[in-house]
């Protein structure tokens, strides 16, 4: 298909003797929300951090619009926004400074930064804490600021690594809506999660990772139909089994 944004080709990642990814190949299409699912240790965070160029793969390649991202990694990085599992806003800066500096790293002018900042803080409801430092924020607000920072430079692809872990249910719902809004804006989203309801609600397709390998990639509806099950959680359990049995 010609609307492939990202082509992941046989990615392997080893940490010493442990093989976190054993050869992952996957196409990610423009404008979709792809849910990366898996139990703890399945390789979700490893894969998303490789896509975000935080870590290099041991083997394999990733192509963005037909070009290896490692040919010119800086150009690729302009196209992505990464929101890691653990909020890493700079605690020494105010949240506004975090966002303003973020825009400036991507070559945005002051006027562009102000315009984008105003748009994002109103979209994500962040006005109240703009002049505070990150350590005063609750988990939900931190995540929203992380998403705002990832979106400052208008990326084509946003990688959200477990954005709703530890959040209250109503905050989770708010973040879900904000992720849907990203799709409306034409942004491609890779959503790493182990909440199956979240993946079912948000994802156009889900990719189930297990022990460093892709078990299956399909739409939630198709998976439910194929497995003749009512929800994604049952499908997931049927696919992955009970991880404690492996111990």
């Amino acid at each position: 298909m010609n609307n492939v944004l990202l082509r992941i080709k046989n990615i392997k990642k080893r940490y010493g003797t442990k093989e976190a990814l054993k050869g992952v190949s996957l196409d990610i299409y423009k404008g979709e929300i792809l849910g990366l699912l898996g139990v703890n240790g399945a390789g979700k965070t490893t894969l998303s951090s490789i896509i975000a160029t935080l870590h290099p793969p041991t083997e394999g390649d990733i192509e963005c619009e037909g070009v290896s991202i490692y040919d010119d990694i800086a150009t690729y990085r302009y196209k992505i926004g990464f929101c890691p599992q653990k909020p890493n806003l700079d605690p020494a800066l105010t949240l506004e400074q975090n966002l303003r500096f973020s825009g400036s790293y991507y070559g945005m002018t002051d006027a562009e930064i102000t315009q984008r900042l105003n748009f994002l803080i109103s979209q994500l409801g962040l006005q109240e804490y703009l002049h505070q430092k990150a350590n005063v924020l609750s988990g939900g607000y931190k995540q929203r600021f992380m998403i705002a920072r990832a979106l400052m430079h208008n990326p084509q692809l946003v990688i959200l690594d477990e954005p709703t872990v530890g959040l209250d249910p109503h905050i989770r719902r708010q973040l879900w809506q904000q992720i849907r809004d990203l799709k409306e804006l034409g942004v491609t989203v890779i959503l790493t999660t182990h909440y199956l309801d979240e993946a079912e609600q948000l994802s156009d397709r889900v990719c189930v990772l297990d022990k460093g390998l892709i078990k299956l990639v399909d739409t939630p509806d198709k998976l439910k139909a194929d497995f003749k099950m009512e929800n994604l959680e049952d499908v997931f359990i049927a696919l992955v089994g009970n991880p404690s049995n492996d111990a």
Partner: protein
Amino acid sequence: MHNNIVRFKDIFCKLVATNLCIAREHIFSQIINLYIWTSCTLIIMGYIMQNFGLATNYGCFQFASIVGVVGLFEVYNTAAKNIMDIDNDRTISYYLTLPARPATVLLATVCSYAIVGLLLTIAVLPLGKLLFYNSFNFAQVSWFTFVITAVLANIFFGIFMIAVVAQVGTISKMRNVWSRFIWPLWVLGCYQFSWKAVYAVSAPFAYLLLCNPVLYVMEGMRGALLSNPDCLPWGLCVVGLCFFIVVGWHYAYYKMQRLLDFV
């Protein structure tokens, strides 16, 4: 490295600006701390220890050493801050995914460290003048050599700070930093004596001390501030510092890459 600086100069400048914006908050407090420990040391070495037979001009000698070592004494705090970040929030991982090479991010850290170190180095000069008004003469200072030595010294200390972060890696090992890294470099870096004095006692030991980068900072700084003819040639100090900057940078980068596994 050259390509990195040219292609990513804008983001490099923004990163330095960010670091300086953060450093600005603490600079006044750092100067107060600097004045406290410097004045305590200089009063003892410049006025009290003379009663125990120390030379009358030793205060100025010690002051020149302190000017050189100011940047080294910031290594511990800055390294601790960076190691805590790696152990906790990993703010650095955000910077490592910016549209630049990791070397740009690390170079910006070194550069901002050097700027702050240079400011502190300059800030301590009036204190020396105040304490040793007649013996420390600004007219004797070779300002050109002073600036070059101070810049190179603080660049080296910035790189050394990154090397310490990469070497230590986790906050639980932070206790090793002072005794294993900073202390030997400092006390064996000719902080309290000149290289020629060591040479007079033991030539092999003096040659061994040439492996200590802080020695070149101390000797270079004393040469610049005191016009002391007993110092090592200033050119040798510059070459020595440049050598350790290049070697230290490659080591720090390599260790940091292993620690953070960046692309």
